[in-house]
C-alpha cells in the first residue's frame, strides 16, 4: 500500500521442515529448514562454503554439523548455534528473493514472519532477535492468521495450517484472533514420521533406513483412507537394496493425526456463536505441507458430518499460503505501524 522504491516487503513462513518466502519483488522460494557447518577443514574444502542451507545442507550432511533449528515452528532454546542457524535460513531466503542486505543499495526491508498460534512470548522475542541485522522492521503473526489474511477469509472461516512441527488452528471472526480463537497441536507431520519409523521398524526389523528416507517416502506417498495403489519403497536389507510394501504402515501413520485434528476442530467450532457455526463448518481451510496428504480433505469433511455437515478445502498453494499471507500483511500495514516495529 505504502511501498516506496527503497522499501521492500516480505512474508516468511518459517517451518520446522520447510521455510518459504514471498517478496514484493515477485520472487517466491521454498527451502528445507536445514543448516550445516563443515565439521572440519577437510569438509570445508570439499563443500567450498562456510555454511550450507536447505537441500544443499541435507545432501552434504555427512560432512556437516547439521541443524534443523526450528521445532514446532519456533526456535529451539538452549543453543546459540540454533539461533545462528535460524539467522542463516532467514538470510538465505532473503538472498534468494534477490534482496540486498548490505552496501549502498541496501533495501529497507519490512518482514512479516509466521509463528505457531500459541508460540511462547520468549520464542517470539528470540525470533525478533534473530531478525536483527536482516530486516529493518519485523511483525510476527500466527501462521493460520497469515493464511486467512492472504486468502481474505476474514469472517466465518477456520484455518488449519498443518506443518511438520505443529498443526495450527485459527477461527476468523472478523477481528484479530484471541487466545480462544486459536490452538496449536504438536501432532503434525513429524508425528507421522515418528509413527512411520516405528511401524516400519516393527514390520521389517532388518531394513535399514534413515529419518530422511522416511520423510521422502511420506512426501511421495502419504494418504489416509482406502489406498489407491500399494506403497512400495526401496531400502537396504543387510546392504542389499530391496523393495518393501509399506502401504498399511503409511496409512496408519498418516491417519494417526486425524483424531486430534478433528477433535480440536470440533472443540473450536463449539466456541463460535451458534448462528455462525454452520457458516464456519462450511469454510474449513486446510493449509501447510501436511495438508497435501492424499484424502485428508475428505476425511476432515467426513468428520464434520457428526456436527451437522460441512466442507473442508485445501488451499491452492499450501506451500506458499503462509508466506503469501505474510506478504499481504506487510504490504497493507502502514509506514506508521512499521515504524513502531522497527528493530
Amino acid at each position, binding site marked *: 500500500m505504502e511501498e516506496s522504491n527503497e522499501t521492500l516487503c516480505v512474508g516468511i513462513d518459517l517451518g520446522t521442515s520447510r521455510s518459504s518466502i514471498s517478496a514484493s519483488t515477485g520472487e517466491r522460494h521454498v527451502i528445507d529448514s536445514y543448516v550445516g557447518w563443515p565439521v572440519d577443514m577437510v569438509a570445508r574444502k570439499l563443500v567450498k562454503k562456510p555454511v550450507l542451507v536447505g537441500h544443499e545442507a541435507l545432501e552434504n550432511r555427512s560432512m556437516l554439523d547439521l541443524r534443523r533449528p*526450528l*521445532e*514446532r*515452528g*519456533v*526456535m*529451539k*532454546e*538452549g*543453543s546459540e*548455534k540454533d539461533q545462528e542457524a535460524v539467522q542463516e535460513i532467514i538470510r538465505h531466503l532473503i538472498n534468494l528473493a534477490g534482496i540486498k542486505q548490505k552496501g549502498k543499495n541496501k533495501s529497507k526491508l519490512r518482514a512479516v514472519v509466521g509463528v505457531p498460534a500459541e*508460540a*511462547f*512470548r*520468549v*520464542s*517470539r*522475542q528470540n525470533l*525478533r532477535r534473530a531478525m536483527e541485522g536482516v530486516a529493518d522492521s519485523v*511483525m*510476527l*503473526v500466527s501462521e493460520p*492468521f497469515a493464511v486467512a*489474511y492472504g486468502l*481474505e477469509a*476474514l*469472517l466465518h472461516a477456520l484455518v488449519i495450517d498443518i506443518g511438520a*512441527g505443529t498443526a495450527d488452528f485459527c477461527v476468523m471472526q*472478523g*477481528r*484479530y*484472533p*484471541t*487466545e480462544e480463537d*486459536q490452538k496449536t497441536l*504438536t501432532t503434525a507431520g*513429524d*508425528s507421522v514420521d515418528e509413527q512411520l*519409523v516405528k511401524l516400519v521398524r516393527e514390520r521389517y526389523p532388518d531394513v535399514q533406513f534413515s529419518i530422511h528416507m522416511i520423510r521422502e517416502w511420506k512426501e511421495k506417498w502419504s494418504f489416509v483412507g482406502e489406498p489407491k495403489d500399494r506403497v512400495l519403497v526401496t531400502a537396504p536389507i543387510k546392504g542389499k537394496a530391496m523393495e518393501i510394501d509399506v502401504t498399511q504402515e503409511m496409512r496408519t501413520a498418516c491417519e494417526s493425526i486425524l483424531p486430534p485434528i478433528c477433535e480440536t476442530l470440533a472443540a473450536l467450532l463449539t466456541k463460535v456463536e451458534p448462528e455462525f457455526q454452520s457458516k464456519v463448518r462450511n469454510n474449513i481451510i486446510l493449509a501447510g505441507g501436511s495438508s497435501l496428504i492424499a484424502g485428508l480433505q475428505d476425511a476432515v469433511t467426513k468428520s464434520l458430518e457428526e456436527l451437522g455437515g460441512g466442507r473442508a478445502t485445501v488451499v491452492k498453494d499450501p506451500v506458499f499460503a503462509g508466506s503469501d499471507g505474510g506478504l499481504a*500483511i506487510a504490504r*497493507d*500495514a*502502514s509506514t506508521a*505501524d512499521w515504524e*513502531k*516495529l522497527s528493530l
Partner: protein
Amino acid sequence: MAILDETKARLLRGAVQDNIDVLQGVRSTDVLQGVRSARSIRRHRIVRPWMLWSLLLVAGMAYLTIPVQVTWRGGGQTANSASIAQDALVPLADESSAIETALRHPQPLDRGAIPLSIKRIVIDPGHGGEPGTTAQSGITEKEITLDIALRLRRLAQDSHLEVLLTRDGDRSFSLDKRVAFANENKADLFVSIHVNWMEPHTIRALETYYVGPTDDPATMKLASMENKESAYSLSDYKKILDKIYVDERRDESRTLAKAIQGQLYHSLKPANPLLENRGVRTAPFVVLIGTQMPAVLVEVSCLSNEDEVKLLTKQNYRENIALALLQGIRNYATTLNVSSRKGS
C-alpha cells in the same frame, strides 16, 4: 469492498498491537485476550512503573543494609559490594528517564556484584522403587543413578562440600518430595542425575537441562517420562512456564548446566569417542521447576545404546562420571565470584 478494507484495517491494528505488547513485555496470555482485555492491559501499564519503582527501592535498600560477605569454602575469596550498590542507586534516583529506560530494558545483574558461595548441594539420583529406563541386559536407570550419586558424595567429602542425597537406597521418593527436600535443606545447588533412552538406539548422547520451555517434541516426551510421578500434566506446565521466564535462577542454572555439561563431555570423550555432545537445553522437569536454587538435570548416558551400557557396567566409567560432575560443580563455583563486566 469497504467492509473488507475496514476488517483488514482492524485486523492489522490487532496484529501491530500484539507485537508492540510482546516488545514491551506484556505476557502473551494478556495479549491474546485481545479487545476484551485491552482496558485491563492499559491499567496494567499505568500501575506497572509504580510497582517496579517500589520493588527497585526495596531491593536497593535491602542490598545496602545486608552485609554481603563472600566465601567459597574452597577458595576463601571475600568482598564487600555495598559501595557498588550505592554507586548504582545515585544516578537512578536523579534521572527518572534513565529509570524508565532501565525498567523497559532490564539488564541482567552482574553476578560479580553479589559474590556467593556454595556449601551444600543436593544430589538427586533419578527414579528409585520404579526402575526408570531399563537396558536390554536388565541394568536399570535407578541403579546407575544411585551408584553415581554415592560416588559423588564420597568424592565431595574431600572438597569440603556437604552433599545430601534425596535417596541413598532403592526406595520410591516422589518428585515433589525431592523438591521439598532440596528447599527445606536450603541447598545451594540441585543436581538430578538421570540416564536417557533415545531412538534410534545408535544415539549415545550427553545432555544437561535447566528449567525452561522446550519446543523440541523429543524433549517434551522426555519431560513427560521423567515427570510421570507428578500429578501435573504438560498443559499445566505451559501455564506456569511464563513465570519461569522471569525466574532469576534461570541464568545461574544455565551457567551451572554449561559447566557440568562441558566437564562431562571433556572427561568422558577419551573413553567414549563416539559420545555426542548435545549441549545444554531447557525443559519443564518438575524437579527443576519447584526447586528454589540453581538446578540442573543431567542425562549422563543412554541405556538404549548397548555400547553405552557396556561402559556403564565398568566401575571406572561410573567413577569418571561422578568425578566429572563434581569438577563441573567446582568449575561453576569458581565462576561465581568473577564479574561478567569487562574491566571490573
